[in-house]
């Protein structure tokens, strides 16, 4: 019995360690496989870098492009008319990430090369964003048939409406520019 215990103690730890290494390596491999088309170069540029904008639209681009809103001061949003323009790519789907309520209208307009989302906030006090808080808005599905680089940007029709004053909140936005694709 003691022998068996010693054997277990001797062998169990290396086996557990080995299993852990195998799991980590497998997960890493799966992630790499999913990103079969990783971005070789992922450049963003500030479209409008004037001082004093309260809202910033930016992009996270890990597996799919995700639009993120941040605010430089506490704001209460009554509505967002969001128009995302795109070039050299086909948007096959748009997923609301649930941090904002479901949009009243959501459509990928291939004719206009726009993703249109109208967020109408029902709560009396609007949707609050605190300084530094990031709100992940939507995730875009990009067609795998992308040969060249592509670009995503916030169209100037976009409105972010302050819940109290019913005036537009100033915003700046980053363009997501993908230059080429890794095969």
């Amino acid at each position, binding site marked *: 019995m003691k022998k068996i215990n010693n054997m277990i103690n001797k062998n169990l730890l290396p086996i557990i360690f080995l299993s852990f290494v195998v799991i980590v390596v497998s997960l890493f491999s799966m992630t790499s496989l999913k990103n079969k088309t990783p971005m070789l170069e992922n450049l963003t540029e500030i479209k409008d870098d004037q001082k004093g904008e309260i809202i910033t639209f930016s992009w996270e681009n890990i597996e799919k492009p995700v639009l993120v809103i941040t605010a430089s001061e506490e704001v209460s949003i*009554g509505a967002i*008319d969001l128009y995302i323009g795109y070039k050299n790519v086909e948007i096959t789907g748009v997923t609301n990430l649930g941090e904002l309520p479901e949009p009243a*209208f959501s459509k990928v307009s291939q004719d206009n090369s726009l993703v249109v989302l*109208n967020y109408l906030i029902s*709560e009396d006090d609007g949707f609050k964003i605190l300084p530094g808080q990031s709100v992940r808005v939507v995730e875009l599905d990009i067609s795998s048939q992308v040969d060249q680089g592509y670009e995503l940007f916030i169209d100037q029709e976009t409105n*972010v*409406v302050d819940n109290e004053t019913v005036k*537009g909140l100033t915003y700046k936005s980053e363009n997501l520019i993908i230059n080429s694709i890794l095969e």
Partner: protein
Amino acid sequence: MKKTTIPLLILLIVTLFGGLMLVKQNQDTRKGASFANTALKLIPNTTIERRVDEIVPVKVYYYTESGAKVDGVQTEVCWGSHLSLDESGVVVNTANGFNSSPIVVINDNCATLVATSQQAADKLKTTGEVFALKFRALSEGQGPITIKKESSMVTGDNSASAIDKEIAVTAVENTTYKITGSSETCETDADCPSGYECYQPICSPGENCLDVILPKYCRPIVSQNCTRCSTVFKYMRVSWNATDCSKDPISTSSSAEIEVSRTYDAGCITGNDPLQCSRCSKTNDNQYVWWLREANKTCDDDPVASQTIYRAFRDECSLSTGEWPVLNYKVQYAFVKPDYSKCFVPSDWPLQVTVLSGGMTKTYKDVVPTKINRSGDFVTAEGSLLLEGFDKTTNIAVFMKGPKHLQMKYAVNKQGGRYNKAGGELTLTKFVETSPVYDFTAYPILSGDVVGKNSNNPDGVVDGYDWTEVKKWAKVLETVEDGGYIKSDLDGSCQVNSNDLYQLRKTLEEKQGELY
């Protein structure tokens, strides 16, 4: 085995059982739990001041969170001995999807009220009125009108479960009343304030009055129909409701609250304002118009849009001159329902009509439909417009918009949706009688354009600015008297509420769907 192995095994087994128990407990508490919260409120929430015998109106509203739509409300409302309520004084709001026959059980000074709905979820609301109560003031005094939270229950449409429909009533808001008047004894009407009369109470048969003559007291005079010829305009008869017809409804300080209707009366020749002008309308068929000209103008000059123009039906005012084409139209202002549109007054909701044909366009402002039909599911409006200065009669397209509406294009009769081609297919004649009546009611004039981008004026689109503006007024349930006007009241119900927000959302969905 090591010394620590057995305690470790026991710990693992205990943890496993603990986890299983927690999972089960979580499932048990979830079953039957409420899926959203709501508040029941009595509106107005300020003290309601009335005199004896007057009606004390109170409404019960629900304000539900998380977008949960309400399909059932049960509540108990209680009040003081100065008020009375009977079943006829309870009206359920069918516009919010509830059945028109509520259950009403009145015991002493409390009433249990139940409203239910069999409507689909899209007809239900998250916030709105459920009951309108009309108490009668019996005697002088003051007290609260309260909602019993523990006796209240709300249910709603839960997309996640057909069983868990309960919405928790997390808050109630009560109101108070103050009744005056009964102690003001009097001998004659002169002892009473304006609008009141000295009343001798009569002992009803069966009532134990012990042969005592009850003291007289002041009570409100029931309003009556008043009418007279205008002192400003010739041929104008004015009518209004008031307790005292000797008081001029137009010159009194409260004139803004008195609804005055005007009709054409050839026998009325008392109007003597030197600036008065009147004639048959040049644009609207069967319509007579009055206005006060500016000092540097004559009555041959047309009134400008900013001037107040009074209108009345007159059969003799026909547009059939034979010189210009006539557009006979029938339209529907979106969502305006017959039973809930006391504030849909056509002259306050004038149309702007633009006609187009063969490269020629002409716009007519302040076009007021003359016939209103309230017999269907939605109110429809008809009129005839003389297209003065527009000499085309074929291939015509018509663009119409209201004061808080989007511009709609009409190009064929009985058009049911967007017309996706250039130009139009309408044909007109130059006589009211022979020009076809074009029915555009299947494609209603969409509303919701109340403000613009950083502007208080409509900008031709319905977007987040309009939503936030309407929501601002819906939050406080902005209300006007019957016949009044609020820009954000999209359905003419005299109140800005969740119906208007729903309507604006539908407009945005439809218009964005067309554009994108």
